[in-house]
C-alpha cells in the first residue's frame, strides 16, 4: 500500500506533475518542504526591516509610496508562504516562535544594514534579482501550493526589481553625490548578493535529494553564474562597476569569470554574527511580544461574540 503510494509520488514528481496537499508524500519531503518554505516566509518578513528602515526618510513622496507598497508586498508574500506551509500541516504560530527564538533561519542578506537611500534601489535590482534567479525555477517545483505561491511572488518581485533599477537610473542621471551614492551601494551589496546563492557546490550539502524531489532545481554555482552573466550588462547600462577585479568575460566558456565572495564573512553572518542579526531577530521578537495582548484580545472577543450568537440562536 505505502509502496503503491510511494511509487505514485515518485512518478508524479518525475513526470513534472504537481503534488497536492491531499496527496500522499514521504515524511522527509514534507519536513524538507516545510523548512524550506518557512525559511522563505521568514525571509520575506525579516526582509521588511532593511527597507522599512527608510520609509520615514524617503526623499520624495512618490518614492515613499513605492517603498511602503513594496514592503507591504513582502508582508503579503510572507502570508502566502505561511499559508503554503499550513497546507503541509505546519502551524504559523509555531513557525513564528522558531523565528523569534532564532531556531529557524532566514536569508542572510537581510543581516546587512541599509545605509543610504541608494540601497533601496540596489536591493531591488541586485537582491531581488538574485532572489528571482533562485525562485524562478521554484515556479516549477513539485509541490503545487508552493509552485503557485512562487509564480505570484516572482511576478511581484520582477516588478520590484524594475522599480529598484528605475530608481538607480534616476539617481545616476542626478547629481554627482547621487551617482557616488549608487556606486557605494553597489560596492556594499554586490558580494552579499552573490552569497545569496549559498556556498559553493563543493561545500553544499543536501542538494541531491532536493534536486530529485524537484524542490531544488539548480545548483548554487549554476545559479550564481547565471546571475553574474545577467547582472554585468545591467551594470554597464546603469554606469556602475562591480567591486571585483577578477570579473571579466570568458569567451571560451561563454560566461563571465568572477572572484569569490569572502566566505569567512558568509559563515560569520550565517552563524549569527552578521552586522544586524541580533537586531533583526530582536525587532521581530519585540513586535511579536508587543502584539500578544492584541491577538489575545481578538480571540477573546471572537469567543464572546460567538457565545452571544449561540445564546441568541
Amino acid at each position, binding site marked *: 500500500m505505502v509502496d503503491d503510494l510511494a511509487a505514485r509520488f515518485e512518478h508524479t514528481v518525475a513526470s513534472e506533475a504537481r503534488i497536492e496537499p491531499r496527496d500522499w508524500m514521504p515524511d522527509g519531503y514534507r519536513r524538507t518542504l516545510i523548512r524550506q518554505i518557512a525559511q522563505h516566509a521568514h525571509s520575506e*518578513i525579516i526582509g*521588511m*526591516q532593511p527597507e*522599512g528602515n527608510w*520609509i*520615514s*526618510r*524617503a*526623499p*520624495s*513622496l*512618490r*518614492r*515613499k*509610496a513605492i517603498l*511602503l*507598497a513594496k*514592503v*507591504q508586498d513582502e*508582508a*503579503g508574500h*510572507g*502570508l502566502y508562504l*505561511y499559508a503554503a506551509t499550513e497546507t503541509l500541516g505546519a502551524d504559523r504560530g509555531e513557525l513564528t516562535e522558531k523565528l523569534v527564538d532564532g531556531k529557524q533561519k532566514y536569508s542572510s542578506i537581510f543581516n546587512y544594514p541599509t545605509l543610504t*537611500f541608494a540601497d533601496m534601489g540596489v536591493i531591488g535590482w541586485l537582491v531581488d534579482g538574485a532572489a528571482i534567479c533562485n525562485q524562478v525555477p521554484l515556479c516549477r517545483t513539485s509541490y503545487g501550493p508552493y509552485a503557485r505561491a512562487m509564480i505570484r511572488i516572482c511576478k511581484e518581485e520582477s516588478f520590484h526589481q524594475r522599480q529598484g533599477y528605475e*530608481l538607480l537610473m*534616476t*539617481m545616476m*542621471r*542626478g*547629481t554627482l*553625490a*547621487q551617482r557616488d551614492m549608487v556606486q557605494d551601494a553597489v560596492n556594499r551589496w554586490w558580494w552579499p548578493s552573490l552569497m545569496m546563492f549559498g556556498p559553493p557546490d563543493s561545500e553544499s550539502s543536501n542538494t541531491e535529494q532536493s534536486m530529485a524531489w524537484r524542490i531544488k532545481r539548480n545548483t548554487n554555482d549554476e545559479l550564481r553564474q547565471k546571475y553574474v552573466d545577467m547582472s554585468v550588462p545591467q551594470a554597464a547600462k546603469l554606469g556602475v562597476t562591480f567591486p571585483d577585479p577578477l570579473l571579466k568575460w570568458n569567451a571560451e566558456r561563454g560566461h563571465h569569470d568572477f572572484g569569490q565572495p569572502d566566505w569567512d564573512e558568509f559563515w560569520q553572518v550565517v552563524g549569527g554574527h552578521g552586522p544586524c542579526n541580533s537586531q533583526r531577530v530582536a*525587532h*521581530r521578537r*519585540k*513586535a511579536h511580544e*508587543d*502584539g*500578544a*495582548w*492584541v*491577538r*489575545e*484580545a*481578538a480571540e*477573546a*472577543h*471572537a469567543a*464572546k461574540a460567538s457565545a452571544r450568537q449561540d445564546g441568541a440562536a
Partner: protein
Amino acid sequence: PADLAAYCLMLGDDALVLSQRLAEWCSRAPELEEDIALANIALDLLGQARLLLTRAGEVEGAGRDEDALAYLRDEREFRNVRLSEIDCGPGPGGDFATTIVRLLVFSSWKVAQFSRLRGSADPVVAAIAAKGLKELAYHRDHAAQWAVRLGDGTEESHRRMTAAVDRVWPFVDELFRTHPVEARLGGVAVDPAELRSEVDGVLDAVFTAATLTRPEPVPTAFVAGQAGRDGVHTEAMGFLVAEMQHLHRSLPGAVW
C-alpha cells in the same frame, strides 16, 4: 487663492503627517494581516496628501510641487491638527490601542468632512474628497472593528483602550474649532464646527459596542489662540519633520 492654498495645506498635512505616523508600524504590527492593513491606510493617506499638496502648490502659483511642500517647509509652516502628529506608538509613545483610538477619531472626523467637501466649489478639492471618502470610510470601519474587539476583549485590552482614550481625547476638541481660513472659504471649505454631532454619533455607537465610555472633550489650551492649523504644534512634531526631511534637505538639487 491664498486661503484656498492654505486650506489645501491643512487637509494635505493632516493626511501626510498621519500617514507618516502609521507607516512607523510597518514591520511592527501585532500580526501580519494588520501590518498590511496599516500600510494600506498609510498609503491611502499618502495618496490623498500628494493630491492635496499638489493642489495647494498649483493654487499658490509659486512653483512649489508636492515635494517642495512636504520637504522644504519648517515645522511652523505645517498646518495639520495636532491629533495627526502625536506619537501613538509603536514605541513608548503609545501602543496599538492608542493608534486605533486616534485612527477612529481621525477617520470619523475626516469622513464627515470629506462627505461635505464632495460639494466644494473648488472642483479639484471636490474630486479629491469624492475619491478619498471611500478610503476613509474603510479606515473608520477598520478602526471601529478593532476598537470593539479591544474594548470588549480581555481585561488588559479594555484597560489599554481606556488609557488610549485618555491619551487621545485632549486633542479632539481642536478638530471642531473653526479656523479663520475655513470661515472665509464658505462654499469651498467645510466649517468643522458643523461636523461635531455627526462625529459624536459615530463615536457613541462604537464606544457603546466596545463597552467604553466616551469622555467629553476637555480642550487642550491653544497658545495665544493658535494651535496646529497655525503651525503651533506639539513637541513631537519637530522630530517627525526632522526625520522625514533630513535626506531630502541633505542633497539639494538631487533627482528622485
